[in-house]
């Protein structure tokens, strides 16, 4: 079971920037993003999230989001998705960075989640 990461943010630049940051420490982890609304505004888009889930090369997804409304749209996409999607109520940038570094090091999901527990803030 390969593990990938999706980043869901209200702002496209945040999502793209987090991807840049974590790709540096996790060259082999598939990271896909859903930032902003369909028309490029501030918000989140269920369609973009679904796209990020399906475009991700992994068959199991760890998902990180910024604010509660992104979480709701993420959960909607999760309901519609065939791939298992795990949501974490952790700090977006720091949580995604931690998960990426650990996945690159070959750690399994349980161990990643143990580290993420310290970053829970939502």
């Amino acid at each position, binding site marked *: 079971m390969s593990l990938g990461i999706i980043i869901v943010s209200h702002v496209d630049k945040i999502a793209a920037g987090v991807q840049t940051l974590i790709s540096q420490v996790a060259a082999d982890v598939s990271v896909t993003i859903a930032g902003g*609304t*369909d028309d490029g*505004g*501030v*918000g*989140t*888009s*269920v*369609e973009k999230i679904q796209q990020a889930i399906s475009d991700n090369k992994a068959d199991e997804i760890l998902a990180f989001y910024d*604010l*509660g*409304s992104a979480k*709701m*749209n993420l*959960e*909607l996409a999760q309901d519609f998705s065939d791939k298992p999607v795990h949501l974490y109520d952790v700090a977006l940038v720091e949580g995604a960075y931690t998960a990426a570094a650990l996945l690159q090091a070959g750690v399994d999901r349980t161990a990643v989640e143990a580290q993420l527990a310290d970053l829970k803030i939502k």
Partner: protein
Amino acid sequence: MTLTLEDTLKWLHGFDATVTAQKAYLSELDTPIGDGDHGNNLARGAAAIEDALGKQEPADLTAALKTIAMALVSKVGGASGALYGTAFLEMAKASRETQEVADLLAAGLAGLQKRGGATTGEKTMIDVWAPVVAAAKAGNLTTQVIDDAVQATKPMKATKGRASYVGDNSIGHLDPGSVSSGYLFSEMLKAGVTA
């Protein structure tokens, strides 16, 4: 009473027109305690609903509710899109079993609660949906009930949603999602759907 396809279309056209007309006001309500986009979000949703319903007349009530849900889910972009979208999605599902208005609204409320995790008193649209569903079940839903529920959100302190970030400073402002939910139910009554 039972909800018909025809009444549903009338109801939603009314809602779409109202939120579009009240777009600036709804966003203004969202400014001191949120990010100032609630009216814009819902106006986008309203346009999407009109668009979707215009493109193809839904075959039945379930199809109509589902079309409305998908338009909201895909075009709103904010919390309210996921919430209203889920509410209509759950109403669509429930409509396969029952067309009783009170039961459908109750299914919508359950969807809202599942999606947002809020209960009454947290200064969210739940504070309008919950008393509306209760009144509908009791068979005495009036505009007064709706308006009172909307106004009751003013003194509340937000503990869910964006408004919770400003804590005590959320007190004294109407909740934008509750105001738009008030429009939803008032338009339902105006469309002749009683409960």
